[in-house]
């Protein structure tokens, strides 16, 4: 049984280091944040448990990205799921948490089953679980087996990453965990799936056919759109963010998928470039999603609600959290000059360059992917206008929101650390990409000594193209211009005369928080435009005083979760009904049971020669 004498052999190459870095930059602020977050929420023992789980969670993720043996990988991979299950069910007094944990765990397990199958097929060809042996073994693997392995790995890691339609667990699980954990789960844990894809599909398996890249691009595009559309409909702040994780995984995979296509098209420079774009977005998403979850957590801790329809006006009550959330929102909406913008620009450029350099259908295909990305960006911006605007601006919509105060210092520290990083990764793009090139080279196995995507430390310049982008310059010019304008206005016109008054109310009403625009109303145009997909429906309820007089009228609008109600629920129902029918075969009659034995032996005797 030499296969299992594994020990803990490590593989630390640029790819692993990159992921270690991502883990570190999100886990650290989250840990600091949790000091303040956990205080007063849980009992002493539970707080200690939270710390233990946090450490275990981070440790398992570190192991996932560093081990060099597939068998050990599988173990630490499941370990990571197990620890995160306990974190999701941490508030286990709520049935919701337990349910979320269960859904999460089941989906993850299905994914792991596929990964296991893929590993075992690879093992059959390599006779060892070691990565290097895997790599050697995969060279001898026939093409169609490679295809199957790829599909298994895609489903397996896709489940963890939350690719549509395997994303179903994500909006349940992420919001239920304590917020600092949500931030790590969304920021880092789902990225380990990307690591898995890079490590096992690109690094070890090697790309066999161009349709691998295509399928990833298609799934990525779908994930982008579906994620952001659902996010727009969502009024639970943390769930909203969770859906955005689906979207952003889609964007990351656009880069990865494009890279795979280019690899197969034998365009190494572009492949590296596209992968850089994907990886850049990966680290960016880790940063700003971590940040947003931390902010959402402090909103939740301070106001005790995550429903944005109950929030509002928090910018005055918790200004620093608001600022951090605003920065996060801008980053995720790809607003200049923050980091989300850089990676989205890079991805668009990668798709564009791919489009130029390829022929025929791929020109259009890449273009459509880029268009999807653009649409996603627009919708994401809309969503975060909603999220920030409804939560932080205007008037508080409930007593709970009115009574919130600024979060404790440790929490703010965690948030501002990440907020700072969004700026740094926005401005230092040219430096970051130099490292990413090395990482991509490691993943794809392409020599990257001659590949350079920067002009100097300030200007991004994709090789083989004449476009440039300099985010520091953009920021500089923008600040200068605004400064000039402000100065011009101030010195040209003098001090502004400002009168503070009530909001214009058409002269009729006293406006209060009940007349504010709501999140539901905000998302209405989107609901109507995407009604073919969202299938919205209404529930109205009249409460009558008498048959002539309606005392109050309740109106709620819902959307149908297409994947849940048309894929998962029917499948589960089918399995469940089959199981129920199966139950009828055991009605308690011993005569029947004896008959089973009788029939079994008869059938076996009849078909004895078939075995």
């Amino acid at each position, binding site marked *: 049984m030499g296969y299992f004498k594994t020990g803990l052999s490590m593989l630390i190459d640029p790819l692993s280091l990159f992921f270690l870095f991502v883990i570190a930059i999100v886990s650290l602020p989250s840990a600091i944040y949790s000091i303040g977050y956990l205080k007063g929420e849980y009992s002493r023992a539970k707080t200690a448990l939270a710390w233990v789980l946090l450490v275990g969670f981070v440790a398992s993720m570190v192991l996932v990205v560093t081990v060099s043996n597939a068998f050990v990988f599988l173990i630490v991979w499941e370990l990571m799921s197990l620890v995160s299950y306990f974190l999701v069910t941490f508030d286990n007094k709520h049935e919701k948490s337990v349910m979320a944990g269960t859904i999460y765990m089941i989906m993850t397990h299905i994914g792991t089953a596929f990964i296991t199958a893929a590993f075992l097929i690879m093992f059959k060809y390599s006779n060892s679980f070691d990565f290097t042996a895997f790599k050697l073994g995969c060279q001898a693997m026939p093409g169609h087996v490679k295809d199957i392995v790829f599909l298994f790995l895609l489903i397996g890691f896709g489940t963890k990453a939350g690719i549509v339609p395997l994303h179903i667990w994500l909006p349940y699980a992420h919001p239920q965990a304590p917020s600092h954990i949500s931030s790590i789960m969304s920021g880092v844990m789902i990225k380990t799936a990307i690591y898995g894809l890079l490590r096992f599909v690109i690094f070890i398996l090697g790309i066999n056919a161009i349709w691998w890249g295509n399928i990833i691009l298609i799934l990525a595009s779908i994930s982008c759109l579906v994620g952001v559309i659902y996010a727009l409909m969502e009024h639970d702040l943390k769930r909203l963010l969770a859906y955005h994780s689906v979207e952003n995984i889609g964007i990351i995979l656009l880069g990865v998928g494009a890279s795979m296509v280019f690899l197969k098209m034998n365009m190494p420079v572009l492949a590296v470039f596209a992968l850089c774009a994907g990886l850049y977005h990966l680290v960016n998403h880790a940063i700003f999603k971590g940040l947003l979850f931390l902010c959402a957590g402090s909103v939740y801790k301070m106001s005790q609600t995550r429903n944005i329809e109950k929030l509002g006006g928090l910018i005055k009550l918790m200004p620093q959290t608001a600022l951090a959330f605003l920065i996060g929102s801008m980053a995720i909406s790809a607003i200049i000059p923050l980091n989300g913008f850089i990676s989205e620009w890079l991805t668009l450029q990668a798709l564009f360059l791919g489009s130029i350099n390829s022929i025929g259908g791929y020109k259009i295909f890449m273009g459509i992917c880029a268009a999807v990305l*653009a*649409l996603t960006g627009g919708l994401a911006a809309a969503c975060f206008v909603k999220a920030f605007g409804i939560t932080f601006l205007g008037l508080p919509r409930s007593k709970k929101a009115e009574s919130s105060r600024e979060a404790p210092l440790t929490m703010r520290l965690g948030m501002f650390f990440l907020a700072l990083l969004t700026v740094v990764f926005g401005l230092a793009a040219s430096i970051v990409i130099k490292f990413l090139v090395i990482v991509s080279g490691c993943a794809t196995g392409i020599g990257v000594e001659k590949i350079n995507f920067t002009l100097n430390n300030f200007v991004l310049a994709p090789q083989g193209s004449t476009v440039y982008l300099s985010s520091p310059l953009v920021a500089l010019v923008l600040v200068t211009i605004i400064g000039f304008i402000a100065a011009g206005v101030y010195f040209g016109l003098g001090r502004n005369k*400002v009168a*503070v008054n009530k909001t214009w109310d058409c002269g009729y009403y006293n*406006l209060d928080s009940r007349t504010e625009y709501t999140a539901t109303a905000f998302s209405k*145009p989107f609901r109507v435009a995407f009604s073919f997909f969202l299938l919205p429906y209404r529930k109205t309820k009249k409460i009558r005083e008498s048959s002539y007089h309606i005392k109050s009228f309740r109106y709620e609008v819902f959307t149908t979760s297409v994947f849940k109600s048309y894929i998962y629920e029917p499948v589960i129902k089918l399995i469940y009904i089959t199981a129920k029918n199966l139950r009828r075969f055991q009605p308690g009659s011993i005569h029947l049971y004896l008959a089973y034995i009788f029939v079994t032996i008869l059938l076996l005797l009849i078909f004895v020669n078939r075995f």
Partner: protein
Amino acid sequence: MKILFLFIQILLLIAIAPFLSGLIKKIKNTLRMRKGASVFQPYYNLQKLFGKEEVISENTSWIFRITPFIVMGCVVLTIPLLPLFGLAVSLNYMGDFLLIIFILALGRFFLALAGLDAASAFGGMGSSREMFISALVEPVALLAVFAVSLNAGSTSLQAISNFHVMKLSSFIAVISLFIVTIVETSRLPIDNQETHLELTMIHEAMVLEYSGRSLALLEWASYIKQVIFFTILSIITMPFGSANIFIYFIKIAAMCLIIAVIEILTAKMRLFRVVDFLSFSLFLSVTALIISSIGL
């Protein structure tokens, strides 16, 4: 030297922007057989607004206050990217065509937030619609840019302002970009700059709470935005004589004429009809892309 030219370019565009708006109004009025206000009316408006006291809602936060500056800053920021006068210089190292889309997104983002800041239902409605339409416009714009850039071989604006870009696909893309321009400049049939009827307005609803110099800045910014879009269209469709300031003005005036004609010929659409309209333009963009991929 280059910096100086850029500086002039920026100031010039800022300066003429209100005039173009006045020009369009004048053309419209003339076509309608009306006398109408002077072409310099926008300048008078701005002057008046700059001089007025500002009234701010008590519900607002700092977002509301900084937004005019950011919006203005954004539109101005796009100007140095355009390869115009002075041997078609531009701040090419700063970014490319795509950057313009991203820059405008920043302004829009803050404007929409400002709409929500005053806790007024009008503002919220405006923000919602603005974000809705702009989200739908984004893929249309991008695909059109994509098609044009494919012809140019680069998304760099300098590369685009070249004769060899002029292909069939570019023209189809330009039609699409023209629709984008109509949307982005709040023109009929998407939006109506002249109405304050609450159920129809989009851009005006967002800035409803603004007054005084803030409003002046926002108005001015929208004039500039209009110029920028006209410029982009002219660069692609008529890639000649960009260095010559008079030719440039003639091209821009032609754009104004077209816009004015379209405005008097159409009525405003229902909000959800816009989706169909934009799908049509998306279809155009895709067609452009397909034709371009064939090489035409």
